[in-house]
């Protein structure tokens, strides 16, 4: 747990959108993928994951569908919508700007 960090508000949305850009996934899969890719630095708890997923779904950026997963169990799969793809582009651009700006400020001092 020691090397985990809290996610900034809003960044979770970006991570979810990015993860779903590859392929449709259920909630657990999204959390696993984020954890793996960040090499266990970013752990997404269900308490923030599912509200975020439902919020994104309501905004129309992702859509959800019940499907069978492995072992023939039913799971809710999320996939990126067209508007969601656009939103991802925008947020990536903003993130790039923000991190560049923060980097500049930090290097200055």
């Amino acid at each position: 747990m020691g090397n985990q960090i809290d996610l900034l508000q809003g960044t979770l949305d970006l991570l979810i959108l990015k993860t779903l850009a590859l392929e449709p996934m259920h909630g657990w899969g999204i959390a696993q993928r984020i954890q793996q890719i960040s090499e266990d630095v970013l752990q997404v708890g269900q308490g923030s994951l599912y509200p975020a997923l439902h919020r994104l779904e309501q905004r129309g950026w992702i859509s959800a569908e019940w499907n069978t997963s492995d072992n023939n169990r039913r799971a809710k799969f999320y996939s990126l919508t067209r508007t969601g793809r656009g939103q991802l582009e925008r947020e990536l651009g903003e993130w790039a700007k923000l991190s560049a700006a923060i980097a500049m400020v930090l290097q200055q001092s």
Partner: protein
Amino acid sequence: MLRRLREMLGWTGKQENDAADELKFHLEKEIEQNIAAGMKPEEARRRALIAFGGVDQTREALREVHGSRILESLRQDVRYGWRMLRKTPGFTAVAVLTLALGIGANTAIFSLIDAVIFRSMPIADPQSLLVLEWQAHKGPGNLSYRNFGDCDESHDSANPHGCSFSLPFFRQVQSQSSAFSHLAAYTAIGQLDMSGNGPARMVKGEFVTGDYFQTLGVGAHLGRLINAADDGASAQPVAVLNYGFWQTEFGGSESAIGKTIRLNGVPFQIIGVTDPRFDALTLSNKYDVIFPMAQRPGVLPNWKPRDDQADHWWLLIIGRLKPDVPVTQAEAGVGLMFRNNVGSVGKPLFKPDSDPRIKLAQASQVLGGGQKQALQPLYVLMLCVGAVLLIACANVAGLLLARSAVREREIAVRLAMGAKRSRIVLQFLTESVMLALAGGVLGLLVAIWGARALMAMVASGTPNPPIFSPQLDWRVLGFTAGISLLTGILFGLAPALRGSDVSLTASLKSVEGGNSGVRGRQHRLTAGGALVAVQMALAIVVLVTAGLLVRTLSNLKSLNPGFDAQNVLLFGVDPRLAGYKGAQIDQLYVQLQEKFSAIPGVTSATYSWIPFLAGGLWTTGFHRPGTPPPTKQEAESGAAEKNEVDSDVFPVGPKFFSTWGIPFHAGRDFTSADFAVAAGNEGDKPSSNPTPVIVNQEFARKYFPGVNPPLGKIFGELEPTGIGDAKAPGYVIVGVVADAKYNSLRREIKPAFYQPIIGGQAFFELRTGTDPMSLVPTIKNLVNQQSQDLAVFRISTETEAIERQVFTEKMTARLSSLFGLLALLLACLGLYGLLSYEVTRRTREIGIRMAVGARQHNVIRLVLAKAVGLIVAGAIVGIGAALLVTRFLSSFLYGVNAGDPLTLAAVAGLLIGVALAACYLPARRATRVDPLVALRYE
């Protein structure tokens, strides 16, 4: 779309289950992963649960994600609003009551308008009932035309139209047109003398053709209704009773069926009673007894064969088309028959190129009889109550503004915690709409009570009670809901926007009651001031309206009608209906006049065709006195029209002028010789002596200028060449009397001549030294002694007749005054509230001023300066608005102009006076401020 809607409605049970499944799946995957990592199943489950965290919190969070939709937030707002309103019961009660009054008054008036406009005809399928209407570029002439007020007619306007037709035309359509599945005609009869059921009395009758009730789709309550067989020339005389008449006159007894009554002396057998729902086809014409058309010649005492010819138009034609016949096709067919029929008369009824045609109009739209007259005063009242509601809105808005000041810390806290401004505005609006809806519900009660009270007032003041009744139908309920919602938004919007405009830091830092930092503070006062000024302005509009109507009423009542209306008893008799004929009638009148004159308490007795101010009017046209009578060519080409003048005609008996107190300016009263001459000229073969007449001053001034007095002058004579008429000797003037009103107080005095009354019905007019009504039993006795078949009808006094004339004016004047006072009261409450708030807010300032030596009058001036500014601003705007609005009143006004400066000044004075009085309490409170207490706030 559906999904969106469901999302708007919020979290559903299915979504709840879905979310549970989703979370369960997640947990199972965790457990699986832990097992895969080598844990025992139990350990794997325990660890997974720990890592998973609180499921309930997540579900709550999800609920919030979905629930923060309109309905959920609305539910929150309503709950919150309810708490806030309950916390301040005084405010809530005042606001709800104010709104209930405003909304209730509006709903009450609207329900009356609704009942008049949307009164559906009490028949089957009213939409498909059609009425024949003639239209032409120029109205018809050369004919006898009667209209009983069922149909809105116009003969002179750009688009002349009407609904009266001749019997031959109806028969032609009936026999030749195949377009109708049902076709019927009807006409009013007027007063009929009914005997055989208690003492003789007058009833209102209607003649209908055989298919009338089938066309309307009206059934019988009892017995049967008139059918085609009853309308044959040799059929037995039968009659149908109106349900209401049957109730009052026959006590609703079934034994009435089969009973024989005599109408104008003709025996009729009662065969049925109409359905109770069928009161009347049009608002103004309700009939007691209905007969087959074929009985007209027997019943009508003065019926002549020529009444049934094509140039006598007096019946209305209604019908329903066969399902497959288009209206335009039927109109074309009937129109052709109409032109043929009109062309068969032998004299031109329509001028060339006036293009007469037939329109099949919806009966519900054309047969509006009496609707316009009923609606006009209601519209004026609607204007008044509308303004009252706006004032009430402004009042509640003012209260809310003051309250939003108290709540600014609460709002600041919510804003600081991340609430959006739109959310706060919505919250405020929810509260105001809740108030308005509560006011609306209470207002409905006010409306039901108010509408009933109004109807009772109307019913008590008119001889013919209105046959429409206000009901809470969906239109009225919709109206109430609509204006409640609208008022809620209207009075809530300004406070909501102001209230949410809070400067955070200042408000949060501020101490309760101290000087706080609302950005909108200065604005709020301005907004409150504007509201008060608007209230003042609206109150002025209502008060000016009321003032003008009150002045109209008093002008009409104090008007000198030209005769003495006090202590005059009126009643009608129609000896024709009791079998009297020709000269017998005149002899009877003379005998009755003698007998009435001898009654102790009667100072003078006379009779005339109708009394003054009874509504009836007779006018006649003749060629201008001093010009030669028109030749036949002139009459036919229309060239004679330019020399045509007209005059009112008033047939009167002996001693008419002395009984009414109308002074002679020249000449003399009628003598018995005059009556003999008039009787001689009455028939088809007039004598060569002109009928003696007495003219009014206006007549003498207008038609005999420069001849003063025009005694012995002759006018109105016709040469035998005049079309359609034999030689007529005209009239000779034997006297000139002072001007007097004829049929209506409002109508200006026109040229009029009085001629000796011959035959027909008459009203007796008895001037009494005591209460006129106390003589009624004596009179009935006398008439009964004379003849048992003779009925006395329409007994009243002349003052009652005048009261009836001004009844509408009285109602509108009283109600608008009531609403005007209500408006004034509410506006002053608004002013009082604003000033109280102002004084409270400036307590500290006033304290300091007083501490440094300000005197009482300085403090009062401080408070009043603002109030006076508001009042004056409101008054100026209000007078401007009143000038605009009251223009629409001009048709109601009499003897006063819409922009009457006296009324405006009086209203402005009243308003300023009362408003200043409303300032007194807050101002006095300001002077009582204790500087020490005020300063201790710091």
